[in-house]
C-alpha cells in the first residue's frame, strides 16, 4: 500500500506494526526554515535548517503511552515505538481514551503550498531584507535598526491510525520583520513592523518600514500617566493578542476539567451583542489556516460567540467522547498528545477606520503595545492586567505619548464592555486576526 508520499508511507508502516488490542497513532513531520538577519547592510546571520520528528501514541485497555524523537532515523523509530508501548502501563485507565475516527467531514481545499516560495532564490531573500532595512532607516533621522529579518518555513505532516485516519498536508509561508530604535537624547523607544505572505512578492515593505518607525518615534517623550478609569482603543495587533488570551476558555477539555469561566454559560450572553467570534482555519486569509487538525481530521469553521451569545465549545476526539459530542476538528499538537485550542480566531469586523473610532472617544488611550500578558493575565479566573504604552486620546484626537502604565479589568467584563469594533481588519502572523477595538471602563495604573 503506497500512497506515493514518503511521509504517509512511513506513518502507515509504523501503524501496521500494531499488535492485537493496541490502538496506535503515528504522527510524523518534517520541515525546514530559512532565517536571514541583516544588520547595517550586511548579513548578520543566515540560518538554513531542516528538522524532522515522529510521535507515537499507543493506547491499550484505556491506558495511554507516548514517545517522540527528533529524527526519522529507522534505528530510532523502533526505540520510540518500544518506549511508547512501555509507557502505556503507567497511564491511568481512562474510559474516554482513544484515537480520532474518520467522521466523513471533507477537507476544505486550500492553497497552503506555494511553488514560487519553494523555489525562491536565496540572493533575493537577502536583498528583500536589506531593502527593508534601507527603507526603514530612510523614514526618519531618529531611527536606528535593531535588526531586519527575512524568515520562511515549510512543513509537511502525515497521520496514520489503527482507527482508519490517514491524512497528509504540507504548507509554507514567509514573512519579513524589522525592529527599530528611536533616540532622543538619553531616551530610546522601540518599534516593530512586519509583512506576511505566501510568497515574498506579496510583501508590503513600505508599510512595514513606516509602521516600525512610527511605533518607535510616536513614543519619544512619553510620560507616565496618572491612574484612572478610562476607555481604551486597542491597535489591531493588540486586539489579536487579546483574542489569543481568550482561546483556552473555549476548549471543551478545559470546560470539562473546570478550567474555563465559560462553563455552564452556553446559550447565555457573555459579550456585548456587537461581538461575533469565529474560529475558522479554513479561511485562507488566516496566517494559521490549515486543512487538517492535530489528529488528522478536516479543519472546519466553528462559531464561538454570535452577537454576544456563547454558541459552542471546541473539541478534540477525546473531549468530544467525554462530552458525548463530535470533534470540532480543533485538536492541536504542542509536542505531545493532542490538546484542544482555537486554530484561527476571527472577530467579525465592524465598520469604521481607527480614526473614526477614536473620534467617538472623549477621554481615553490608544494602546499601541502591551507587555506581560503571560505574567499578568489569569485565563482561569479571568483577572486581566498588562503593561502598556500608547497615546492619550482627548476629545476624539490622539495626543501625548504615555508609557510605563498598566491596564486592568477582567476578561469577563472586557467582553461585555466592548463598545465598538473597527472595520480595519488585519491578518497578522499569529493565530488570530486583529482590528481596532474599543473597550470601556478599564483601570489604567500609572503614577
Amino acid at each position, binding site marked *: 500500500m503506497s500512497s506515493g508520499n514518503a511521509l504517509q508511507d512511513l506513518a502507515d508502516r509504523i501503524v501496521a506494526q500494531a499488535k492485537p488490542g493496541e490502538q496506535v497513532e503515528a504522527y510524523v513531520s518534517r520541515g525546514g526554515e530559512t532565517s536571514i538577519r541583516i*544588520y547595517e547592510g*550586511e*548579513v*548578520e*546571520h*543566515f540560518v*538554513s*535548517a*531542516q528538522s*524532522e520528528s515522529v510521535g507515537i501514541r499507543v493506547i491499550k485497555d484505556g491506558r*495511554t503511552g*507516548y*514517545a*517522540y*524523537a*527528533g*529524527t526519522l532515523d529507522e534505528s*530510532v523509530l523502533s526505540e*520510540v515505538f518500544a518506549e*511508547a508501548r*512501555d*509507557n502505556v502501563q*503507567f*497511564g*491511568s485507565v481512562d474510559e474516554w481514551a482513544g484515537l480520532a475516527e474518520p467522521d466523513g467531514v471533507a477537507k476544505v481545499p486550500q492553497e497552503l503550498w506555494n511553488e514560487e516560495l519553494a523555489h525562491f532564490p536565496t540572493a533575493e531573500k537577502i536583498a528583500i531584507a536589506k531593502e527593508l532595512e534601507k527603507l526603514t532607516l530612510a523614514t526618519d533621522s531618529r531611527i536606528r535598526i*535593531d535588526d531586519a529579518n527575512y524568515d520562511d518555513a515549510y512543513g509537511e505532516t502525515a497521520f496514520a491510525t489503527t482507527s482508519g485516519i490517514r491524512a497528509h498536508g504540507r504548507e509554507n509561508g514567509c514573512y519579513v520583520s524589522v525592529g527599530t*530604535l528611536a533616540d532622543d537624547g538619553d531616551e*530610546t*523607544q*522601540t518599534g516593530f513592523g512586519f509583512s506576511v505572505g505566501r510568497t515574498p512578492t506579496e510583501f508590503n515593505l513600505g508599510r512595514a518600514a513606516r509602521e516600525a518607525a512610527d511605533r518607535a518615534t510616536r513614543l519619544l517623550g512619553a510620560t*507616565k500617566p496618572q491612574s484612572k478609569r478610562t476607555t481604551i482603543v486597542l491597535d489591531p495587533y493588540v486586539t489579536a493578542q487579546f483574542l489569543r488570551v481568550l482561546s483556552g476558555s473555549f476548549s471543551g477539555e478545559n470546560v*470539562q*476539567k*473546570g*478550567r474555563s*469561566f465559560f462553563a455552564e454559560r452556553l446559550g447565555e450572553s457573555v459579550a456585548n451583542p456587537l461581538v461575533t467570534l469565529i474560529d475558522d482555519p479554513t479561511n485562507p486569509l488566516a496566517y494559521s489556516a490549515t486543512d487538517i487538525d492535530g489528529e488528522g481530521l478536516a479543519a472546519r469553521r466553528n462559531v464561538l460567540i454570535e452577537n454576544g451569545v456563547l454558541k459552542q465549545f471546541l473539541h478534540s476526539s477525546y473531549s468530544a467522547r467525554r462530552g458525548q459530542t463530535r470533534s470540532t476538528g480543533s485538536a492541536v499538537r504542542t509536542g*505531545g*498528545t493532542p490538546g484542544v485550542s482555537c486554530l484561527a480566531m476571527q472577530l467579525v469586523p465592524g465598520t469604521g477606520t481607527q480614526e473614526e473610532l477614536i473620534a467617538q472617544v472623549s477621554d481615553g488611550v490608544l494602546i499601541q503595545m502591551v*507587555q*506581560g500578558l*503571560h*505574567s*499578568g493575565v*489569569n485565563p*482561569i*479566573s*479571568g*483577572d486581566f*492586567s*498588562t*503593561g502598556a504604552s500608547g497615546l492619550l486620546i482627548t476629545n476624539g484626537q490622539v495626543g501625548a505619548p504615555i*508609557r*510605563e*502604565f*498598566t491596564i*486592568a479589568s477582567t476578561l469577563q467584563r472586557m467582553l461585555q464592555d466592548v463598545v465598538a469594533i473597527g472595520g480595519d481588519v488585519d491578518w497578522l502572523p499569529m493565530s488570530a486576526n486583529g482590528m481596532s477595538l474599543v473597550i470601556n471602563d478599564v*483601570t489604567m*495604573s*500609572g*503614577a
Partner: protein
Amino acid sequence: MSTLSELVGKETIEKVLAKGRSTGAGFSEIFIEDKRSTSAGLDDGRIEQVTTGRDRGAGIRVVHGETTGFAHTADLSEAGLLQAAEAAAVAAKQGSGGVVTVALGGIDTHQVNDVQILPNEVPKTRKVELLERANEAARSIDKAVVQVSAGYGDSVRRILVANSEGVFAADDQVRTLFRVSVVASGDGGMQTGYDSMGRTIGFELFDLYDVEELAAGAARQAVTKLKARPAPSGALPVVIKRGSGGVLFHEACGHGLEADLVGKGASVYRGKVGEMVASSLVTLIDDGTMSGEWGAIGIDDEGHHSQKNTLIENGVLTDYMWDYLRARKENHRQSGNGRRQSYMHLPMVRMTNTFVINGTSEPDDIVKATKNGVYVAKLGGGSVNTASGDFVFGMTEAYLIENGEITEPLRKGNLIGNGPQVLRDIDLLGNDFAMGNPGTCGKDGQGVPVGDGQPTLRVKSLTIGGTAA
C-alpha cells in the same frame, strides 16, 4: 548510552570544522547534543500519560567577517555532518578560501553539578507515584480545591562542542523538575495556585524536597485567593519575599546587561560600566557554577567554562555578560554566558543563575517599616524592553501591607517599572537570601533554564496594575 565522542569521532569533528572554514571563514564550530527526557503528567485525577523523548543532532556555525552561517542536522554520520558544514559555510560566504586543517587536543570538562541518581535509571513507577502523592496532598487541603494538575520532568542532556580555535569540551547536564497547579472554586469564581521545584541534579531532588508540601502550598495559595480582593491601582511601596522575586532583577537589569543587546545600543545600560546604576545596597551576580541550581552548567553551549561574574557591585555596574562573538568583537574576556536552547539554535548571551546577595535588614523589620504597600510572596514571569528599560512582572501570590502588617490577599496582576529607576529605589535589603523557583528564560524565540534569587527587599515605589482605587 554511548558518549557523544564515541558517536562522533575526533577525526570526523576535525574534518567538519575544516569543511566549515573551506570558503574562507575565520571560525567554525560544531555543537552536538543528545538529549533524553521523560515527562509524566497527572490531570483531573488521572495519569494522562508518560512521555519519553529523544532529541539528537548537531548544529554547525561558521563565522566569516560579520556574517554567521548556521545549519543543523539530525544526521550524525560523517556525511551528514559534512553536508551541514558545507551548508553553513556557503551561508556565511560564497566563494573559496582553500584548504584548511583543524587539530584538536583532548576533551575538556568542567564539573559543576554533582548528580547522585540518574533519572533514567529510576523506574517510571516511582515518578508516577510522586504525581499521585501531590494530587492527594493538594486535594486534602480544602473542599474548594476542584482541580489539580501535576507534572514531573527529567532530562539528561549531553553536549560536545568543538571549534576551529581548539575548543573541545563536553558536559552532561541532568535536570529534574516537578510542578503543581491547582484550581479552587468559590462564590466569587475560580482562582489558581502554582508552585514548582527544579534543580540541576538527579532523582535525589525528591530526597531534598517534599512533593506533598509543594502541592499543599499551591493548594493553599489557590484557596486563599478565593477571598482575595482586587489589587490596588497605582504607585506603592512593594516588599518582595526572599527567593520569590529574582525575576525582578532578571528583567530590571539582567537582560539589559547582555553584551549583544548592549553592543547594538538596545540597552539602557549601554556605556554605563563604572557608573552607579543601582542603590548601593545592590550587588548582583550571575553564577553558572552554582552547583545544582537550575541555571548551573559545567560549560556553556560554546564550550567555555561557566563562571561566577559580578555584574553590579555596591550599586556600581562592573561588567556585562558575554558570548563568543561579542567578546571577540570587543576584545573582551569570555564570561561563559553563550547558551542555546538546542542544537537547532544559534547561541547568544544568556543568563545562568542571577541573584542579589544579602543585605543586613531583618525581613520582619522591612514589613514593619512599611506603613502601606504590597507584599509579594510569589512572583510570576516577566518581560522587559531593554532599550527603554520598562519591564513588567506578575504577582502570583500577594497581600496588602497595612500599618506595617501583612493583611488581605490580592488577585493576580502585573507590576510595572523602569529598570534603572527601580534599582535606585531599592531602599531595604534583607539578610535572608534564598534562590527562587526554576525558570525558563525566553529570548529571540529560544528558552533556556535559568535560576534567580534574592533576600527579602523593598522597592520604595512600583506601579501596581490592579483595579482597586
